[in-house]
């Protein structure tokens, strides 16, 4: 057994998994509260990457240092994605509350297409280069060939934001209200929780994390176009289901699990069937453990 290769693949999977996890949280939170597969969530991630690119481009002209640019790009991308997430909910989902189940799903697919074409028209359909904003740290040089500085930043940033989110959900008043709404929206409303506000907050948090992921992965892969959201979105959604949709720690675990599986499958078998592995894993999981790794099996009430 070639241990170095094994570890390399593991670290590669970790980076990829962290990104999936960041996006998956948005899916899982929205699903937990309004039981909607928000297809347009991947597009929010893509918008985050584009906003980051624009900020980086403008600041780059004025010669700011790379690290300041990275911070500003992340902050502004988060701000804008939160705003987009909030608006999207108000326009495309809120008027549909109480409609048949499939209607919000179609609305979400429409929204996803809309945002993709919005970027094509307002920006471009070509691939754009994204500047490298994370410098090569010197202390990483000895292992740079298997785990670079960018990978480190991505893993650390996602870990930190996930811990912060977990604490927020567990201990703050708003977090508790969110959990209550997810469990039983009517009951929560009776207890004086403003459900509309909670739903908006959910979209804002989910979108912010997607924006963070969008900026980080773009500086890692060095390019972006309008389609990156769709592919990442489908994968992240798979991750959310693997972990147990509705569960936030589940989304993190699911993301890592998916990232590692893809990495090892590509490394030891072939990357030709990379996506087939991901989807087969999903199908197998759903058949044998439909509630995911951490999700609770729903009790059927009669």
């Amino acid at each position: 057994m070639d241990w170095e290769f094994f570890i390399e693949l593991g670290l590669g999977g970790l980076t990829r998994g962290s990104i999936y996890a960041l996006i998956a949280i948005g899916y899982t939170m929205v699903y937990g509260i309004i039981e909607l597969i928000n297809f347009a969530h991947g597009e929010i991630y893509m918008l985050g990457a584009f906003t980051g690119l624009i900020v980086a481009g403008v600041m780059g002209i004025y010669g700011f240092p790379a690290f300041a640019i990275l911070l500003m790009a992340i902050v502004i991308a988060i701000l804008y994605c939160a705003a987009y997430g909030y608006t999207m909910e108000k326009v495309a989902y809120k008027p549909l509350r109480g409609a048949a189940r499939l209607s919000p799903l179609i609305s979400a697919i429409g929204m996803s297409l809309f945002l993709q074409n919005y970027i094509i028209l307002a920006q471009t359909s070509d691939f754009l280069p994204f500047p490298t904003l994370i410098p090569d740290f010197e202390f990483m040089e000895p292992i740079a060939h298997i785990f670079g500085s960018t990978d480190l930043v991505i893993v650390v940033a996602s870990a930190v934001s996930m811990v912060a989110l977990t604490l927020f959900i567990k201990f703050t008043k708003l977090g508790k209200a969110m959990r209550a709404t997810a469990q039983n929206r009517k009951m929560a409303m009776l207890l004086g929780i403003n459900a509309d506000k909670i739903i908006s907050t959910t979209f804002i948090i989910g979108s912010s994390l997607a924006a963070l992921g969008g900026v980080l992965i773009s500086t890692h892969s060095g390019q972006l176009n309008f389609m990156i959201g769709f592919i990442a979105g489908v994968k992240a959604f798979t991750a959310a289901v693997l972990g147990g949709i509705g569960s936030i720690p589940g989304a993190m675990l699911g993301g890592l699990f998916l990232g590692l599986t893809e990495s090892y499958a590509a490394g030891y078998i072939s990357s030709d069937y990379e996506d087939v592995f991901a989807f087969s894993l999903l199908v197998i999981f759903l058949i044998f453990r439909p509630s995911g790794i951490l999700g609770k099996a729903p009790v059927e009430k009669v």
Partner: protein
Amino acid sequence: MTFSGLVKSIITGLAVTAMCVPAFAADTIKMGVAGAHSGDLASYGLPTVNAAKVVVEKINAAGGINGKQVELLIQDDQCKPEQATNVATKLVSDGANVVLGHICSGATKAALPIYTEGKLIAMSPSATNPMLTQSGDYPTFFRTIASDDMQARLGVDFAIEKLGAKKIAVLHDKGDYGKGYAEFARKFIEEGGKAEVVMFEGVTPGAPDYSAVVQKIRRFKADTVIYGGYHPEASKIVSQMRKKRIKANFVSDDGVKDDTFIKVAGKNAEGVYASGPIDVSNLPMYKEAIAAHVKMFGSEPGAFYPAAYAAAVAMLTAIERADSTDYDAVTAKLRSEFVDTPVGKIKFNEKGDAEGVGFSMYQVQNGKYVELK
């Protein structure tokens, strides 16, 4: 209004629209331009539209072809086969005399049976799939670009003889073009017996990173990577290879020989080899074509522009020489007489491939592709 009335009025409306397009107007020569003009592959298709506009404007300004003005019928197929058949039928029914296109091999394959049936010459500046000409199924097809197997042959010979490659990793983007190129490359390497293929794999376009594949390149100690596909994935692979301190040579195809590749990959692009059409930038006609584009659109032309310009010129010249738009007459002229184009003096062989066009190898040096002699 009843339901049927509604439908009827819609359909009548459509029918009227359809009939408004004159079925045949003998006083103009109609050239169809088909390819991806929207969607993610638009950057490959739009330069061809520009080329057609430049050529036609020049010809029309000079009085047209034997007194007839040339008219363009521009149709978007988004490089999708099902759209391509719609576009092809539309061009046939709109009375196009020749077609410049299509851009992607898949869409071209879908459209060609319709042109074959309608006896309509289609000339592509970019569809490089070998089967299009070598199968003999499509007698009306011509192209002003060499086919993939020629490129793969060049890439493999270059890697083994010039770069001394012994262990080659062959990668592709799972697409029609990229996988075709990679399969030819593998075949040529194995037939030659001077080097071995240590890995043969496809990467998924749009995946967040290719680290697993890149780690494998290291693991198999490949000294050269031959990649078939387009530039977005190529720049991602090269960047990740360099980030992971892998120094293997990177040899690729015409899809990567695009200035966008250098822009996106930045300093990581340095030293990358890619094959592309022979450098013709010293030909006066090439310079003239570029200048005309800059004058008309205010920018440098994009991919396949010279080849598209050449195709437009070749077809229209053949019509002029034949003094007719008759299929047999025009085809005979295309096959028998040389024509001056921005890509050189060309004529076409029986299968439809251009004689006189070929590939040479380029390398990125100081942020520019430089032809290696």
